[in-house]
């Protein structure tokens, strides 16, 4: 039962195929999360500073100035999309990996997996 070496929990050294798959999808979701935040703000900053004071707020999308829409509307929507993608993947992954997972699961009184 010792958990040393490669079987010790470490997000950078996952042990087992299930955990490796899970960490891969976590990494992809977090990359999408970070890239959207940094990318959108980088774009807003560069556009604002490359037009010599001319307002980028003149450009609108869905009635809103681009920076407002990109940051205030798109990013929260993108986060929801990331959560949905992650959940769908995890639901499928749970089904595929159930044989391994059930060894350590219990069931509550109403039969739900815990």
């Amino acid at each position, binding site marked *: *039962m*010792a*958990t040393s070496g490669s*079987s*010790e*929990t*470490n*997000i950078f050294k*996952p*042990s*087992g*195929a*299930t*955990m490796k798959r*899970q960490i891969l999808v*976590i990494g992809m*979701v*977090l990359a999408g*999360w970070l890239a959207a*935040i940094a990318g959108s*703000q980088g774009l*807003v*900053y560069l556009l*604002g500073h490359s037009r010599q004071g001319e*307002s*980028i*707020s003149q450009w*609108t999308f*869905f*009635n*809103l*100035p681009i*920076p*407002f829409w990109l*940051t*205030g*509307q798109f*990013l*929260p*929507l993108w*986060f*929801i999309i*990331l*959560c*949905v993608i*992650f*959940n769908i993947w*995890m*639901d499928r992954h*749970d089904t595929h*990996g159930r044989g*391994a*997972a059930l060894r*350590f699961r219990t069931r*509550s009184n*109403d039969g*739900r*997996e*815990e």
Partner: protein
Amino acid sequence: MEPGSVQYLPLSIVAALFAFLFFSGLGARTRQASEYGFGGSYSGRIGIGAAIASNWMSAASFLGLAGMFYLKGYLAMAFVVGWTGGYVLLLVLMATQIRRFGKYTAPDFVAFRYESEAARTLAAIIAIAIAAIYSVAQFRGIALLVSWLFGIAYTPALIIGASLVVGFVVISGTLGVARNQKLQYFVLIIAFILPLMLLTRKLGYFWLLPQFGYGTAISELKQQFGFVWPQPFAGESPFAWFALCFTLMFGTAGLPHVLSRFYMVPGIRDARWGVAWGLFFIALIYWSAPAYAVLARLFEARGSVPFDPASADTVVLSAALHGGLPVWVTGLLVAGGMSAAFSTVTGLMLTGAASFSYDIYPRLIRPNASENDKVYAAKGFFLVLSAVSLALAFRPGGMMIAEIAALAFALAGNTIFPVFLLGIWWGRANAAGAIAGMLAGVIITVAPLVAGGSIPLIASLLPYTSSAFLGAPLVIAIMIAVSLMTSPPSVEIRTFLNRHVHDGAEE
């Protein structure tokens, strides 16, 4: 907002809403599990999401965010991104795993994972501090609304508001009223969005989706009044924006009363989908909040009302008032704000009182305390916590509601978040590392408040509302270093983590 006269109709609407929520909670107390959306069905997951959103919605979301946007423009977008993006971190890194630990509070988790009563006590003290700071923001919001309702000044309004909170909790607790959070969310969202739709309709904008319709007001402000909304990053550096945004994200994934939602959800899939639905419901409010700030500016410009930074936290209310909405609509808005603040402050106070009566009192103060003693300790500490938050809310140091809340997020992001993150994802993290990390996190949070004035470097690198951007990685590094220098955790806890939490030992 200046003192005026008693607003009888809005006051009646507030009273009616609280009576409605109170009696629905009274009726739901015996069937709490299903009413809270814990059924596990598809509609149950929506219910869990609504409960997560209701648990989250506070005076900072309802009043503070629009106030920040009114006052600081694009910087407020960091709140929108931080308070929604944090849920992605929470979902992918913590929600499933926390559920598998099966512990009911943050200190419980810390004590179990790190096998340390000292770490439990420290986590409990930090949880209490977070509850106290966050409650100050709620008390300020309640006081501003009570001030308008009764036409009185801030200080007496604060005392009345705090008394109402204490009375509400005492009566609810005595009668065993359940918090029907699913119902409460739908009341909140209607109270927030309906006035906005009516305002944009009155202005002739695209009122069906006022979250987009308010863009016309930005153009009108510029064309008719020459007011240009400040350019992004014009008033603050990109570092300040990112530091605030990531502090709020780390704090979201570290707030004890948010984390505790996942201990109580019946299934792992329900926990995950509950987060996604919860984020959608939260985003509905955040997509809408900037609109109130823009419309308030427009009405001020139209009515030649001077810009008043002191009224920023009530800008939602002033938009409705200057927009000429019927009084009952303004009453609905106030009722929603009061409900959000009351719900949050109640949850925070109860979390703080439970941390004291369960994690500190029987372990440090009275080791042989009976269950009855613990109940009295919880009640007594609830009153102490209320008094402390009330005292701090008298003079919140010129901070706005959202800024006070951000300070609580900074503390959570610097302490609880790293401890949970490494506790879940690194088997080698041990008690010494957790204790060192939490202590360092407290110092990092407090440093800009204590030494920021005399050491400008601290104030610029660790702004008090945004210290977790650099602070959380620093705490993680300290935890790793201290853990590696001291003995590893027991084989039992590492095995539990690897097999029960992560399914990692199938090979």
